[in-house]
């Protein structure tokens, strides 16, 4: 899995994504700056592409960091309660502030995402029986508990319809002015890259880290903050995208190992590519309607996840 090929694939798919859709846009029609096509292109298609790439790269890297820091291949924002904690945070922000601004939502959701992930890591520390499958199951249960609290609160406050509608991952609503929050993930991804070696050492465990002079706790905390930041921005702008953070890092790990400085760019690229493919398929399969991205990713992703589970015998 060469980086070169991934980049070529990403560029090709991006191009395809820009020119697939209900309104017919051709590269030629963009030459006329004032045309309706150009407008749709700038207001809808381009933001959609940028959002997909950032969300795909961001969620995959979140998963990569979580797997490395928890030392478990099946831990990810989906399987550690991070997504559900974020969702709860968004609801709480909506209940606290009558007309919550994006920033208010962002801050509250971030606090919840971080707290939820930290709590899960605490639980993980206490579990003696560290079976590779058992841990994500605990995470899923933890997530379900958070999710039921969210549902209960939303039900009481009569916003349940509202909530579930826009938390489904969906790129069709992405437009200029609605996705810019995602730009936060760019510096976060860069910081993750700068920390790649530290995350790799931390993944060797606390004793190895201490032996090599790494401030283990601090690095773990920084990693979780980055994860919470990315997850929050993605959930707030795009909605929940399940499985991505789970399967992409695992696929890269099989081919390229876990030396994060080497594998982080691949993980980001493949995440973006995978999400682009899901999005394009979702747009053309029942054309002129759209299948939502979370459904597409859920179906394809769970298939890949099962495959990873079964091949675990030879690779844990």
């Amino acid at each position, binding site marked *: 899995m060469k980086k070169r090929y991934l980049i070529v694939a990403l560029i090709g798919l991006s191009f395809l994504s820009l020119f697939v859709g209900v309104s017919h846009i051709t590269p030629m029609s963009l030459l006329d700056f004032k045309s309706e096509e150009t407008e749709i292109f700038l207001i809808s298609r381009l933001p959609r592409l940028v959002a997909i790439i950032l969300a795909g790269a961001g969620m995959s890297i979140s998963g990569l960091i979580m797997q490395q820091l928890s*030392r478990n291949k099946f831990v990810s924002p989906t399987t550690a309660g991070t997504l559900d904690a974020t969702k709860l945070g968004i609801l709480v922000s909506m209940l606290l502030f009558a007309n919550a601004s994006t920033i208010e939502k962002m801050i509250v959701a971030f606090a919840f995402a971080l707290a939820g992930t930290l709590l899960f890591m605490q639980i993980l520390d206490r579990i003696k029986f560290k079976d590779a499958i058992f841990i994500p199951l605990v995470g899923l249960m933890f997530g379900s508990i958070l999710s039921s609290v969210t549902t209960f609160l939303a039900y009481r406050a009569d916003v349940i319809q509202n909530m579930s509608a826009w938390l489904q991952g969906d790129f069709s609503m992405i437009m200029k002015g609605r996705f810019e929050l995602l730009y936060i993930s760019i510096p976060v991804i860069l910081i993750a890259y700068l920390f790649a070696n530290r995350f790799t*050492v931390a993944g060797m*465990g606390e*004793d190895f880290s*201490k*032996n090599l002079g790494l401030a283990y706790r601090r690095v773990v905390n920084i990693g979780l903050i980055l994860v919470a930041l990315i997850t929050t921005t993605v959930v707030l702008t795009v909605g929940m995208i399940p499985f991505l953070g789970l399967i992409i890092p695992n696929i890269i790990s099989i081919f390229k190992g876990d030396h994060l*400085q080497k594998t982080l760019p691949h993980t980001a690229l493949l995440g973006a590519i995978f999400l682009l493919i899901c999005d394009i398929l979702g747009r053309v399969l029942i054309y002129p309607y759209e299948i939502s991205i979370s459904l597409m990713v859920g179906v394809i992703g769970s298939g890949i996840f099962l495959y990873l589970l079964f091949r675990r015998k030879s690779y844990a």
Partner: protein
Amino acid sequence: MIQVRELTKFYGKKAVVENVSVNIHPGKITSFIGPNGAGKSTLLSMVSRLLDADTGEVLVDKKDVKKMKSNDFSKRVSILKQSNFMNVRLTIRELVSFGRYPYSRGRLNAEDIRIIDQALDYMDLMGMQDSYLEELSGGQRQRAFIAMVIAQDTDYILLDEPLNNLDMKHSVQIMKILRRLVDDLGKTVIIVLHDINFASVYSDRIVALKDGRVVKDGPTDDIINSDSLKEIYDMDIPIKQLSNCRICVYFNS
């Protein structure tokens, strides 16, 4: 010199290391021996700061280890624990490269690469340097970990039962390399051994622990005798002189 002063560690109400004071002489191989559960690993973990002592202190070259910066400490003292669970998919070479982390923070220079190559060569791993750790046998993986510690290039090297899983050839090879690190490069090696014959043949000094206390501490020749071994292991072990090695015949005692 490493000075261990009145070190004590409790687990619950039980002192597993009790008031241990011992000096580790620089430029020597010191073997720690003693029965299972004597407290050897616990002591090594405290010396290397992996574990906090309840009372007492450890000085490395006169400095309290608790007051040293982690990065400085990791350039002076390295440890390989008795059992190492690693879930990270790294190749041997990548792992050994991380031995240079205290110096390079991941950006390797020519000197780092030379040291990594040398460590791989010492441990006979050059031919399989690009294999993933999980694809190795127990002994090969153990050698990769030792190579990493050697690449860390510290003055003090602490090894907790490094010969676990190793065949005779590689056990001897590693002991010879440790001898070379000490004799040629002036390193200080602290090693936990269960095979007292390796301790007898390769170490300069022996410290024997039992029930959390030091029961013997001295030059190898003073410890490898039937009386001392009886005290440490409660076994009657005859000693045979073979050329210039003292061999303990414990197999049928």
